[in-house]
């Protein structure tokens, strides 16, 4: 073992949910990875990109390219931020062949956390234990931009003491959408409440997802409604023992 992995924890986890980053680090170390946290990292630029500010997004993306230039393998606790890099950086640099080459090289080195475990580390059982009934919320970007559906469920299936109950309807948006959540607050809130009802119908005590952003939206709505359901990032579940 002793393989080296760089963490990109995302700005949201860095600033608001550091425990998610620590949990991800704990799981990776348990699997024998040597971790590195490039201190220059900040954000992938998605907030600017999704808001229509491409020049600003490009500047942040370039900083990202510089920061992770020497990282052989990057793991991210977010489907959305991973998709920004693997699906949208190329659009930002389509007129800059040199940068585009770096982007394409980066695309092959960056992994969303759950997929990294099942496809690179090739593990499903990370030795976790959590006595809980949980439901899994598919983040839209993880699901539809990266095609991630099975990996987190296979990982959850190996957690001792854990029961997974699927939501009906499955795979619907929580209504976060970045700046959408505040630009169209009332609409975003209504979407969150519809998702919340699906969560409550499962009877689960915990909602698990691959994205801290979806969980912030869902926890915000659950907390406002006075529901006792909590949210946990998959990394936190897998770090439990």
């Amino acid at each position, binding site marked *: 073992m002793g393989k080296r992995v760089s963490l990109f*924890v995302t*700005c949201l*986890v*860095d*600033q*608001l949910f*550091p*425990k998610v*980053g*620590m949990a991800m*680090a704990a799981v990776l170390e348990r699997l024998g990875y040597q971790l590195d*946290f490039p*201190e220059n*990292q*900040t954000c992938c*630029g998605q*907030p*600017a990109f*999704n*808001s*229509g*500010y*491409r020049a*600003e997004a490009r*500047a*942040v993306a370039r*900083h990202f390219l510089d920061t992770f230039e020497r990282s052989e393998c990057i793991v991210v606790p977010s489907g959305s931020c991973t998709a920004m890099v693997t699906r*949208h950086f190329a659009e930002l640099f389509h007129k800059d062949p040199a940068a585009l080459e770096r982007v394409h090289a980066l695309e092959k080195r960056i992994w969303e956390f759950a997929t990294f475990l099942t496809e690179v580390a090739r593990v499903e059982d990370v030795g976790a234990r959590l006595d809980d009934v949980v439901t899994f919320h598919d983040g*839209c*970007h993880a*699901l*539809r*931009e990266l095609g991630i559906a099975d990996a987190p469920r296979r990982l959850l299936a190996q957690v001792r003491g854990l029961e997974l109950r699927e939501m009906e*309807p499955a795979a*619907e*948006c929580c*209504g976060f*959408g*970045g700046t*959408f*959540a*505040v*630009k*169209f*607050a*009332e*609409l*975003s*809130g*209504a*979407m*969150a409440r*519809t998702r919340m009802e699906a969560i409550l119908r499962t009877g689960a005590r915990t909602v698990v997802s691959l994205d801290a952003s979806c969980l*912030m*939206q869902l*926890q*915000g*709505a659950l*907390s*406002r409604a006075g529901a006792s359901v909590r949210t946990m990032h998959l990394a936190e579940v897998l770090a439990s023992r």
Partner: protein
Amino acid sequence: MSTEFERKIHETLADAKLQLAIYTATGRLKAKRVETVAPDVLLDYQELRAQAHAIKKHAIENLDHYLEEFERNVEAHGGKVAYCKDGTEVADFVLALAKERGARLIVKSKSMTTEEVDLNERLEHHGLESVETDLGEYILQLAHERPYHIVAPALHMTRYDVADLFARRLHIAREVVIEKQTAIARSVLRQKFLAADIGISGANFLVADSGAVVIVENEGNARLTTSAPRIHIVIAGIEKVIPRAQDLATFLKLLARSATGQPLSVYTSFLSGPRRTGEIDGPEEFHVVLLDNGRTRLLPDRGKRESLYCIRCGACLNACPVYRKIGGHSFPWVYSGPIGAILTPQFMGVAHEPALPFASSLCGACAEVCPVKIDIPKILLELRSEVKKSEAREKQHRLEKLAFRAFAWLMRHPRIYELAGRAAASMAPSEEGGWIRGVPGLMNIPPVRAWLSQRDLPPAPAKSFREMWRRR
């Protein structure tokens, strides 16, 4: 955002009855689609989508060629083809023909293209009677409303709403049984069909190599519209042309499944020209009006012209968590839902409603169900960038622009980013108190206020990840 757009969204969200109607109706269509495209029912669904996309791509990239081929073949069957650049030209065409032939009454089958150019209003303005014969469209015409949904135009109305409407507009006793309501509409419309001089229809496909106009429907009203009156006028967008009759094998498998979850619509009509010698029915005259109305403006952009692949199935509306909340009438033009959010800014200009491309969480459910694989989220993102470019010089948008410039600068200066993050965290309540319902000092910041209007905020952690990492 225009206050009109904001107001309509708010009103729809606040109307519990309407919310239930939209959610139930779209949910039903959504579930039926899933059933009819399931792998055990339609094994090659994904291949069909790829094929449909490839055919549309080819047709749109060779539009001039296929339109001319279509035109030649229509004329070979005795039909006539006219090109119109906008709604005025379409109305002028119909008005001139009606005047020449002494026509007064028009029956219409469902067509989003004619909604686009407000054809009924234009014709009525000149003293012609134009009657919608699709049940949903007929209801909406009586109610003076525009379609709520591309496929199910009266989706927002319950049978009780229809009962009230019929009673008021047709001066009859209130009738709440759907079958009886249908019979009422039928008896009114049957007389119109028999008396009409002109039938106006849209088209689902224009087949270049045969000159056929293909129309799918469930009620049979389109078949009557196109065969009973002595003149039939087809009004179709130029993007409706497909190269070959055999391409229909792909599209007809996808269209009804995506739209209503039917393997096929009840009626699929192939119309090629007027009645020929020896035929017992069909119109004496057959005209096809090919409408641009902004479509050619989309052609130069390789990415955005994908919008013209749309076959108007409405699947993206039913799948869209935003449409299912704000409904059809919140949208600023005739096309609603995800496809409306990309067509409207391109047909009408981004200034028509600059907030429209932003009214999406970019969840991608639309692209997932699109039978011709239009990458709607990607086009929304491009339109967002266009909106910001067009707003760049306007005063009221300077603050946002400045904020994103500051964001980009901060994100390239990790040390200052860290300090700024800690400074912000020091102003927010700490972790012990749980999630936050209000933050006195920060409530004046609009995004914070907007967030807190609907949800609680996470408390600020004692340390950021990088601090924890350093000290571990």
